[in-house]
Every structure is written in structure tokens, then in C-alpha cells.
């Protein structure tokens, strides 16, 4: 091989910053930092009010100073519509039920709107409606209002569902993303990453097959059971898009605290771990649809874990970390499996499978 002429390392080449200032890209929907920036820069600017500014997944207000109503709203796009463990119907109902339940409220009612693409199969619509009914019954709620619109072929991807859930909460219950305190501990109700991997496998675009099922489930009964034994819970949140890592970062910012996780304690199914390694994903960033993160005083953690484990959706509940005082900026850190420490950042944009 001939002697190479050495390049000049002082000459640097750089791209211009990415032009995501003008258009929506898929990363805006990933649930990570780009989603947050989009919401902050457009929606929060125009819609700002005390309830919305709390940045929880639900809003609550008092009626005649004695009844506390909790409302949450959600839109659902998923491909494929039917996946191992569930479908868009179950996802829609469970998703909204869970958002409301994360305030500690009992969800009571749901409204649903459907945008259907011309040509969408009626049998599939029937299956979805049935699934919604079954999930609603499981959660103990009623679907009380709905609307349907049809879009021309090509203008909507088969079916989009939007739901709003309404619940009633005790006026004394103070649960929200801003309530985590140093000294609290973190509990996750079960294994992470199941839903995201199940969906990816079902899409069949990345060539892998697995028996992993989505964990999609309504968690309101589970949460009520835990609240009975651990009434001083500070934060409840379901780590959906963007995964556990993104949820923790959001809460750290809301509460102005730091979190310290123990990697060894975080439950991940071995198939999910394997799929993540194949794709180059980190399970901490993969979506869940049937798990709840609980932040509560340490003294109540044992009772909470006991209550969780009694319930079918909480059998694998574990303590995964603790809340520490903020130093500098809100941060999530983790003791790794080999004893090192690293930052667990928020998801930046869409997670893409990598070869490097």
C-alpha cells in the first residue's frame, strides 16, 4: 500500500443545522424532545392557562367547590391496526383511561371520534368497536358520545381515533408530575418495552419475528388498589411514547429533582432485550401501553409493591430507583449493570434501527 499523504486535520467540514423549523417530520411524533419542543413552541404558546401549564397528561377542576373532575384527551394512530396483544380500539380506550387514572381519579366516561378512510373494511371497524366495548367494560367505564367522519381515499391512513376520558377524583388527592420529592422511591409496575417491540415485529419491516405481546391494558383498577394501601403517592405516569426514560426526564423537569436508577432492577423481558440489541434500541426509550411509574415516599413502597403484585397487571412490579435533590439541572442518572454511572437522556427524535 502506498504511503498516504496525511490529510490536514485542522480543516473542518460541517453541515448546516437541520431545517425542522418549517415542517412536521415523523420525529415530532416520537414522544421525545422534538415532540416536547413542538408542543411548547406552538400549542402551549397559544393555549396557555394554569391547568394546561402544569404539563400533566390530564387536567382537573372543581365543580361547585366539592366535586373534582379530571379530563384527558388523546389521539391514536397505530400501524398495524391489529397487533399481538391488542388493536387500535383497545389502545384508544386504555390510553385515555390511563391518562385520567394517572391523576388518581376514577375514570367514568369516554367520548370517541373516528376518522375513517374511504374503503376501510367494515369487518375491521366492527372488530375495533367490539374491542373498545370490551376494554371499556374491563375498565368499568361507558362510552357516552362519539362522532364519525369519512375522509377520501388516501387522505387518512385507514382509521384515526381520538378519545376524551372524564373521571372523578377526591379533592384531597394531590398527584402530579410536579410532586416528586427527594427521598421518594420509584416503582415500575412491570417489564418495559413490550408494546413498542410487539408493534415493530408486527409491522414486519425489519425482518424479525417474536412472541412478544403488547402490554396494552387499562390500569385504573390497579392504581386504585395501590392507592388504598399507599395513599401518599406523589406521581403516577404511564411511560408511553418515548419510553420510561422520556417520562422520567419530563417529571424531573416538572418536579425540579434528580433521579437515580439501578439498571439491574429495571425489568426487561429477554426477548425485548434481544430485539432491542438487534435493532440498536435502548429498552428505556421503547413505548409501553400497560405500565405505570409510581413515585412515592419510601415508607409506603413495600405496601405499594404488595398491592401491585396481587394484581394481574402488576405481578412484576419492582423498585427501580430513587429521587435525589437536584444539582444543577434536572437529570436522570443510572447505575449501570457493571457499576458505572451514566445519564439517561430524553429521546431526541425518532428511534431508528442502526447498524453501527
Amino acid at each position, binding site marked *: *500500500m*502506498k504511503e*498516504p*499523504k*496525511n*490529510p*490536514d*486535520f*485542522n*480543516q*473542518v*467540514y*460541517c*453541515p*448546516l*443545522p*437541520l*431545517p*425542522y423549523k418549517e*415542517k*412536521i*417530520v*415523523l*420525529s415530532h411524533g416520537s414522544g421525545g*424532545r*422534538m415532540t416536547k*419542543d413542538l408542543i411548547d413552541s406552538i400549542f402551549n404558546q397559544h393555549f396557555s392557562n394554569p391547568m394546561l401549564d402544569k404539563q400533566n397528561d390530564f387536567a382537573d377542576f372543581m365543580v361547585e367547590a366539592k366535586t373534582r373532575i379530571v379530563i384527558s384527551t388523546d389521539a391514536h394512530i397505530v400501524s398495524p391496526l391489529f397487533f399481538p396483544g391488542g388493536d387500535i380500539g383497545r389502545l384508544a380506550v386504555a390510553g385515555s383511561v390511563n391518562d385520567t387514572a394517572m391523576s388518581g381519579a376514577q375514570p367514568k366516561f369516554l367520548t370517541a371520534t373516528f376518522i375513517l378512510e374511504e374503503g376501510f373494511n367494515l369487518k375491521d371497524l366492527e372488530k375495533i368497536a367490539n374491542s373498545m366495548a370490551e376494554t371499556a367494560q374491563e375498565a368499568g367505564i361507558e362510552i357516552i358520545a362519539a362522532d364519525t367522519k369519512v375522509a377520501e381515499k388516501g387522505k387518512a391512513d385507514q382509521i384515526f381515533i381520538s378519545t376524551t376520558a372524564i373521571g372523578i377524583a377526591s379533592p384531597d388527592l394531590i398527584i402530579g408530575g410536579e410532586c416528586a420529592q427527594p427521598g421518594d422511591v420509584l416503582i415500575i409496575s412491570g417489564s418495559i418495552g413490550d408494546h413498542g417491540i410487539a408493534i415493530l415485529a408486527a409491522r414486519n*419491516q*425489519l*425482518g*424479525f419475528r417474536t412472541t412478544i405481546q403488547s402490554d396494552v391494558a387499562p390500569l385504573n383498577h390497579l392504581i386504585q388498589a395501590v392507592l388504598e394501601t399507599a395513599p401518599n403517592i406523589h406521581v403516577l405516569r404511564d411511560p408511553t411514547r418515548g419510553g420510561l426514560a422520556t417520562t422520567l426526564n419530563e417529571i424531573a423537569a416538572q418536579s425540579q429533582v434528580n433521579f437515580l436508577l439501578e439498571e439491574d432492577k429495571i425489568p426487561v423481558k429477554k426477548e425485548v432485550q434481544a430485539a432491542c440489541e438487534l*435493532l*440498536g434500541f*435502548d429498552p428505556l426509550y421503547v413505548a409501553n401501553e400497560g405500565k405505570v411509574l409510581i413515585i412515592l415516599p419510601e415508607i409506603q413502597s413495600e405496601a405499594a409493591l404488595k398491592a401491585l403484585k396481587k394484581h394481574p397487571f402488576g405481578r412484576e412490579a419492582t423498585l427501580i430507583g430513587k429521587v435525589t435533590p437536584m444539582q*444543577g439541572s434536572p*437529570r436522570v442518572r*443510572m*447505575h*449501570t*449493570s*457493571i*457499576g*458505572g*454511572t*451514566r*445519564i439517561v*437522556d430524553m429521546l*431526541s*427524535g*425518532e428511534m*431508528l*434501527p*442502526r*447498524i*453501527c
Partner: protein
Amino acid sequence: MLEKFRTKDQVIRILAEIKKITTQPWRIMEICGGQTHAIMQYGLYELLPAEIELIHGPGCPVCVTSLELVDKAVAIASMENVIFTSYGDMLRVPGSNQDLFSVKASGGDVRVVYSSLEALRIAERNPDKEVVFFGIGFETTAPANAISIIKAQERGINNYSMLVSHVLVPPAMHAILGSPSNRVQGFLAAGHVCAIMGYEEYEPIAQKYQVPVVVTGFEPLDLVLGIMETVKMLENNEVRVVNAYTRAVTRSGNLVAQEIIQNVFEICDRQWRGIGTIPSSGWRLKPRFQEFDAEWRFNVHNIHTHESEVCISGLILQGLKKPTDCPAFSITCTPQNPLGATMVSSEGACSAYYHYARD
């Protein structure tokens, strides 16, 4: 059995051994971006004795793919009737004006594939479209990319072509170690590159520059083993190439894979983004596969690349500076708004630092 390469106790023991044998400061380069990523992800860096400095090399094919090629990719992907396929890593790499992701957002048919054979299958299923595959990577990925060209020719699939950007490790090592500002004293060779190519070609490099080289894997135990073997040699003033990844690597490598590569590719000069042109440091398609070469097929001229001056990727890729030395790091330069290639790729040094260690 493989889980044993991740166990904490073993790793702690090797770290203790490294601490014991280290008597002076040493600077070791790990050239593979995947190893950089793993070291940061496991929080390994801070567990090493302070005397050991790990320098992150330019082993990130996503980072070093030339700006001109990214712009060509964007140009081709924006064409009507083209299905542009790529490994996921490349989608967010910024070109002069946009990246492949934004081409997708504007309606271009850009698809992530997990293998080149998948791209070939897309070509078969869409005979009326042109399917282009972005063939990037170091030696590890070359046989995987090459096989699709061989099969395309065998099966007469005429609507498939590849935009090639392969880079090679040994010329990069020569360039780094031969530079007057070189600080590297020991080298961790990329385990999977060596699984393909073997490690014979590192022996003359080690001798020429008097730098010990250790073929290293990717599990935490592999990484600390690799570092330990390097430090041992440095402390004893030995210069050899040692294989610490024997379960996957042999001295001559995978000869069948090498044959596949030689069938399809030939050496060429390559431009490394952030560094410059390194002679004979890349592979391109052999003339008899010209019809499968996307650059030839699409004739993309008039590509004007725009460079900026804030980013110090070049200095970081050579190991002269750390991401945290850069005034833009995590302030104006973040993964959402990268100024340089090393912040874009999930395994670029800046990205790894940002995600795992920016405090």
C-alpha cells in the same frame, strides 16, 4: 454462556487488575464508534484509572460519509420514481440543505431496511421503480452490502443500484498515527471489522508506529479485557497485535467474506467528512458492476456542498479534542440541532457524550 461476558464481578476484577498494572498515563484510541457508544453507555470510562485516557477515533461510518455523498443521496431520493433505501443510521445525517428524513417528510419514498437483501427484494417487488440502496459502512458491512450486488446480477434485477461509501480502517490508522499531532499510544482494533478482515494487516502498522494493538469485542468484559491487554503491553514496552476477541476473530479473518468483497469492490480514495481525503481508504464498485453504481446511473452533478466553521468534528475524530472541549457542545450543538457529523450519529463521540455524560 454469552451473559458471562456482561457480569459485573468479572468486569470489576479486570478493572482492579488494570488499576494495579497502570503506573503512568496512557492514551488509547478505540477506533470503533460502537465501542465508544458501549463504553459511554456502561459508564465504563469513569471506572478506569484516571491515568488511562480513551481517545475516540473516526470509526463511525455515518459520521465520516462525505457531505457530497449525503447530498447526492438526498438528490437521488428526491427524484420521482425512486425508492431510496438505507440503514436507519443515515436518515438523520445532515446534508448541505437537508437530510433524508426531510426528503421523506416532503413526500420522497425513503425506507429504512435492515439488510441490503431487503432492498433488493423491494426492487423485485417494484419493477417499475428505481430502487437505490445507500451502501455505507466499514469492512464489517461490506460483504452484507456486496451480496445484494452479486444477487442482483445473478437474478437480472435491473432496477437496483447502490450508492457506495465504504471506508477502511487501516488507512485511517496510518493517517492518525502518522500525523505530527498524534497522541495515540495504544489501539483497540474493532472486533467485528477484524472478524471479517482478520488482523494480519495491523501487524506492520503496529511495528511502523510502535503502537500495540488489541482486537477487542463489544461486551463490557471484552472492552476491559482489551484495555487491560493494551496497558500490559504499554507498561512492558511491547509492541504486538493481540487478539482479545478470540471467540469471533481469527488472524486471517473470514476468507469467504473477503472473497465476496473482492468480487464486488475495489480500492479507491475516499473523502472522510470532518477529516479530508485519505488516499486508498475506501471501496467502490468494480467496473463490471458499473450499471449497479447509483452515482453512474443517476449522474448527479452540480452538487455544491456548504461547510460551516463552528464544528470541531475533525479534531474530535482525530482524538485531539474531546466533545466537552467544544464551545458549541450541548449549547448550540445538540442531537436535534447538530453542527457536525459526530453529534448526529448515535455512535459519534459527541452524541455519546451528550446522551450519557454531558455533566
